[in-house]
């Protein structure tokens, strides 16, 4: 007796829960691995998962087991040279005794790290856990600005290109059945009668002719019911549906004057990477606008943004002006969620700093969701910082932080976007 059961279509992810438990238990180690890895990624490389490394000893499941030493008696196969009483030099550790119990090596050896992969989603979840985009809820509720055309049943009127043939022919069939049913019934009765008359022993010619003409006229009436009528026509109906906008534009502003070296730019780049990845979790499409400036601002592509060298003084307000202009030209605030991130080493022409603060205050912060300013420097703050501090006091969606070196980026980023539940409450 045997029953065959095909289980191949059952869900194959029986272990998912246990896998989640595993990730949960080793969250601290995994998080460390994730944040180590984040500094090694390219800006838009967000589509891959990540390898996670955990030292094996942290994962052990200890049980009592016998250690090395004492007296061991073992039987081995394949004797090719030994006689009773032979004495063999003890082989160096790790060889010869390979025949032991598999258990013995559970903890003794095998210091390999436990390496495994997590998916892109798991990676991003871990990276941005407990973080949120500020003011997101507010903006999405208040801004239903885009419309999408969706199918919405059928209607009796419309333009020829929207005619739904199947539906219309169904209507036509239904109408023809409805309009001819009584005549068909009549026709059937007459035909039956006629058949009876024909089989009858004596012909009743008069009645037969009458019936025949009746049948003829009924058939004509039936055939006169039109095959298709404008009454049958059905048109596909469309309706406009409002959808919340899910587009974002991220402005990367960076000082590229002589004082910014490649190391400082790399730090800035890391920050932009994180911001970009974070935004991908919320928005379907993201435009990135790179604006670099020294005494003049210019919109450039990614490569030039990070790697071309410039020299000269610094007038940061030019970049802000350009950003403002680009927003007005291309990114209507009703259609786009606007994010800005400015990175600088803090140097700015002293007279220009108040202007920067003014542009931010009046133009940019009024339309953007969030604007962050990071200062990458080891030195004390200068005028730009001081001016921005005043701006920060009056705008909750403006944030500024100082970063000393690469290791600060992730903590600072987390600090900027950490959930502010206490504020909301």
């Amino acid at each position, binding site marked *: *007796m*045997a*029953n*065959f*059961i*095909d*289980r*191949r279509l*059952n869900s*194959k*992810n*029986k*272990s998912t829960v*246990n*896998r989640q*438990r*595993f990730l*949960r*238990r080793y969250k601290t180690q995994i998080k460390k691995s994730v944040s180590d890895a984040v500094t090694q990624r390219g800006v838009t490389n967000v589509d891959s998962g990540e390898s996670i490394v955990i030292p094996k000893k942290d*994962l*052990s*499941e*200890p*049980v*009592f*087991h*016998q*250690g*090395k*030493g*004492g*007296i*061991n*008696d*073992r*039987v*081995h*196969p*394949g*004797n*090719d040279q*030994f*006689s*009773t*009483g*032979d*004495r*063999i*030099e*003890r082989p160096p550790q790790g060889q010869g005794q*390979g*025949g032991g*119990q*598999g258990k*013995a090596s*559970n*903890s*003794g050896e095998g210091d390999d790290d436990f*390496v*495994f992969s997590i998916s892109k989603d798991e990676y991003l979840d871990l990276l941005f856990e407990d973080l949120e985009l500020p003011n997101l809820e507010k903006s999405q509720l208040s801004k239903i600005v885009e419309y999408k055309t969706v199918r919405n049943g059928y209607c009796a009127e419309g333009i020829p290109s929207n005619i739904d043939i199947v539906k219309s022919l169904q209507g036509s069939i239904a109408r023809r059945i409805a309009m001819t049913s009584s005549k068909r019934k009549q026709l059937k009765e007459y035909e039956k009668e006629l058949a009876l008359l024909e089989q009858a022993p004596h012909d009743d010619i008069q009645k037969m002719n009458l019936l025949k003409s009746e049948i003829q006229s009924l058939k004509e009436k039936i055939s006169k019911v039109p095959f298709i009528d404008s009454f049958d026509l059905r048109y596909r109906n469309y309706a406009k549906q409002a959808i919340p906008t899910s587009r974002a534009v991220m402005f990367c502003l960076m000082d590229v004057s002589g004082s910014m070296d490649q190391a400082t730019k790399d730090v800035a780049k890391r920050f932009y990477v994180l911001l970009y990845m974070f935004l991908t979790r919320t928005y379907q499409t993201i435009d990135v606008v790179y604006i670099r400036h020294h005494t003049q601002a210019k919109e450039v592509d990614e490569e030039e943004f990070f790697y071309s060298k410039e020299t000269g003084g610094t007038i940061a307000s030019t970049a802000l002006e350009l950003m403002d202009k680009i927003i007005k030209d291309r990114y209507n605030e009703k259609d786009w969620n606007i994010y800005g991130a400015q990175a600088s080493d803090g140097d700015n022409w002293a007279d220009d700093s108040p202007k920067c603060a003014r542009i931010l205050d009046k133009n940019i912060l009024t339309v953007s969701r969030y604007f962050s300013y990071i200062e990458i420097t080891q030195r004390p703050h200068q005028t730009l910082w001081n001016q921005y501090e005043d701006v920060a006091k009056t705008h909750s969606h403006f944030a500024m932080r100082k970063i000393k070196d690469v290791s600060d980026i992730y903590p600072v980023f987390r600090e900027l976007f950490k959930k502010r539940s206490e504020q909301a409450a």
Partner: protein
Amino acid sequence: MTKKKPLSDTPDWTFELLSEYQTEIERVAKHYRLDTYTNQIEVITAEQMMDAYAGVGMPIGYNHWTFGKKFIQTEQTYKRGRMGLAYEIVINSDPCISYLMEENSMTMQALVMAHACYGHNSFFKGNYLFKSWTDASSIIDYLLFAKNYIAECENKYGISEVESTIDACHALMNHGVDRYKRPQKISLEEELKRQKSREEYLQSQVNNLWRTLPDNELNKTKEKPKFPSEPQENILYFIEKNAPLLKPWQREIVRVIRKISQYFYPQKQTQVMNEGWACFWHYTILNHLYDEGLVTDKFMMEFLHNHTNVVAQPEYNSPHYSGINPYALGFNMFIDIRRICEHPTEEDKEWFPEFAGSNWLDTLHFAMENFKDESFISQYLSPKLIRDFKLFHIHDDDSQNFLEVSAIHNEQGYQKIRANLSNQYNLSNIETNIQIVEANVNGDRSLTLKYTPHQKVPLGDTKDEVIKHLHYLWQFDVKLTQEAENGDEIILSSCPVKEEEKN
């Protein structure tokens, strides 16, 4: 005998073809008097096989991170091609569930059906250890109960608490078995009925035991009996019944893990026999089909190729050597028993007077039903097989700086090799002997365990971690001791760690 029309030997299997083969295999198995549970054969994919791996042989498992780790490990090694997956997994249950992998060829499916559905299955049903220690009809129900119960606990008391408790139980799982007492069979309904009342009853018992009401004078002067009165080897059982501060649901979880450990206990002791028996029967059944002309030469070639791989025994100096292959030893022993019955030599008659020349099928069934690895080897390992395997015995005493070859495959060595090989499969030698010797119920409530080494083998270095887990369950001081050669008691490990020991 007229040759029958052979079954199709296409590499691709279909359910119809599986069923045809199954019918033929079943017929032959009946012919050889293999008594089995009803077979439930489930075809699964490679991914599902990895899931099954992660469940360590439990078709329904409770949730725990260790299974997730196992799954990730399996997935990693499999995807990198370092490891193939087993062709089948078979569960000791009634009906007997066997998993066949989708990507096996038709020949492999036939091999696997003969091996698992008739070999292992009949072993589960016939062997005395399985008969008396496990209850095949209720295991699935019990595992389901365990899964639901643990999930319910997680809802009530939080995942972390439950996880720590299971961690601690897993660490002591090998010490949750009654080695000498046979456990009672209970059905799911009884289990459910008893669980509630047990919870309350146990808690009240424990409270009584630890009651801190002032004793009357009479009691104080009386010598308190030692508790427990005899050393306890079943640590988890002792914890379940006596741990002072465990919550009722934790006791139940300890019990669940203990029961599962008990369920797997016979499998640990019959690896050689179980695999040997299954290999013997897939070999015998498929050869029988071949003799009848039901399977083709092509089928047999593929079958023999796989069979030979499975029962290969690399020699001690081969890079592939990793101990004695239980499939090889078991298979060859059963083949050898048949040979001794059918064509006994003078030597066989001298060594095995009780069955040399007897009916081979009776002898084989008797051997399968009444032995475990250790006793099976000491009863049935023949001099011929020792010669075939060229077995030799190495005596390794760490007080000497050399190893000694104390027996080889010759007249003087047979007995010694047989005795030693048998010992190698004796669980009480392989597993550590640790017993609870004292629970100081009237004092500081400390728990004392004693390690008794086998042949002076010291305890492995995970002991501190395990003691920590034990401490989690007991919640008062726990120490592990060993008797030194001069009779002194040395403390191997304790939790919490005592200050003076650090120095």
